[in-house]
């Protein structure tokens, strides 16, 4: 455990160390590419506040805002997709008529939904959540339909032999059986969703970690840009770790075990 942690941390230490050395020796232009010691000091000096007036916000608030947007969008997208996927799978006519539409909408990247979100919801949280939701909903619906079809027939037969009615089979067997598979798909698509939230923040929304980078560019402050990039990486990593935790501790079962 300690060894694994050390193995995971060491490359980071080396990377940051090299970066600092390169900056100190003048191998790179620190005014454009400041090292962590510089932008972390900048963050502390500015009291973890960035921007002025209406655009001002604290860094923790920005992190929370972005994380909330992506988690809320993923959560709603997951629930809606599992429900839709199961309902569609229940009826042959519904799947025959609705799945082509879903298949047509699924390849649209989350980022492409940003303009639609801004037009429909204006600037604000609903837009970001809409972008994440739409970005994962169609894909996860398809994934649910595929998972329903691959549920082990023995489990369904077992439930029926114990007198489970049709709705009981759906609720007690098919529904739990598909959750891990769909959740894995959600985790795979998390990065695209995360990028979409950042992009939405960069083009319109007035807060969040994506905004930090844009403020850095507008104010020509490389410290702010690098700080923003690092925060984006760390926050994304943390949310992914949360998803991984859910995958391993809550939706851990594999099909047919």
């Amino acid at each position, binding site marked *: 455990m300690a060894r694994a942690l050390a193995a995971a941390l060491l490359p980071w230490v080396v990377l940051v160390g090299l970066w600092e050395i390169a900056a100190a020796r003048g191998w790179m232009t620190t005014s454009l590419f400041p090292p962590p010691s510089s932008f972390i000091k900048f963050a502390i000096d500015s009291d973890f506040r960035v921007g002025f007036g209406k655009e001002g916000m604290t860094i923790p608030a920005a992190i929370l805002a972005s994380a909330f947007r992506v988690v809320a969008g993923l959560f709603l997208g997951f629930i809606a997709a599992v429900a839709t996927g199961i309902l569609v799978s229940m009826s042959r006519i519904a799947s025959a008529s609705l799945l082509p539409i879903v298949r047509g909408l699924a390849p649209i990247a989350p980022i492409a939904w940003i303009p639609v979100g801004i037009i429909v919801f204006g600037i604000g949280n609903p837009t970001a959540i809409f972008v994440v939701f739409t970005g994962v909903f169609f894909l996860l619906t398809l994934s649910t339909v595929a998972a329903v079809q691959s549920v082990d027939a*023995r489990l369904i037969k077992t439930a029926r*032999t*114990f007198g489970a009615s049709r709705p009981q089979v759906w609720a*007690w067997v098919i529904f739990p*059986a598909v959750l891990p598979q769909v959740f894995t798909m959600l985790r795979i698509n998390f990065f695209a969703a995360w990028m979409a939230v950042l992009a939405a923040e960069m083009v319109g929304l007035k807060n969040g970690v994506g905004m930090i980078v844009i403020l850095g560019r507008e104010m020509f402050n490389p410290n702010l840009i690098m700080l923003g990039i690092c925060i984006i990486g760390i926050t994304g990593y943390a949310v992914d770790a949360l998803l991984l935790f859910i995958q391993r501790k809550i939706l851990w079962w594999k099909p047919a075990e």
Partner: protein
Amino acid sequence: MSSLTIDHVRKTWHAPGGLQVLAIEEVSVEVSSGEFVAILGPSGCGKSTLLELCAGLEPVSGGEIRIDGEKVAGPNPKAVMVFQEHSLFPWLNVEQNVAFGLKTKGVRADERSRRGREVLERVKLVKFARHYPHQLSGGMKQRVAIARALVGSPEFMLMDEPFASLDFQTRVLMQQFLLEIWLGFKSTILFVTHQIDEAVLLADRVVVMSASPGRVLEEIRIDLRRPRSMTDPAFNEYRVRLTSHMEREVMRAAEVE
């Protein structure tokens, strides 16, 4: 006095492309209460299908199956099926798996837990009540599957090669376990297998089925006292008699293909 009557049953499958496959040509078997009947046949002789028909999981194409004189028209709490491995619900722990058949009948949670524990006590699995299937060995999983079948006190246990995927040692122990269960719970067992030794070791009567389409070739009463030994000369006589049948059928099945 309960009875299971398979009366001139036929089953055809509709294969893709409009083809009809005759799985069971005409089978009649009578099982009365307390009996242990083995159905022996080569792979693909329709013996598993026959069990699914008895369990009401599939409709018959001709003839009828009656349980206590009543025609089987769907899953019936009087006859539950036990499948090969991997039929436990991986997201439920042992106790919840065992109580599944009570849940479908709307039995309250505390009552389910009580009766589940009772059965687990009798099959000596109470220690593992909170374990999940993936934490159990193959033999233990099958004991749980059998306990799950017993919880609703069915009159008939329909077992579809329940020990086929177990290693030799575990299989011997499980066969012993099943005999104890059969005597202890006074259940009636219809047991499908392709292993001659298993059939002779366990059953009062062996029904030999032919390769596709399935027909009954012979019914042999096993007049050996229990506990039976596979090294007993009388055991060997049955083995020889059944082996000649099986060899012929396997060869015939190979020709059909």
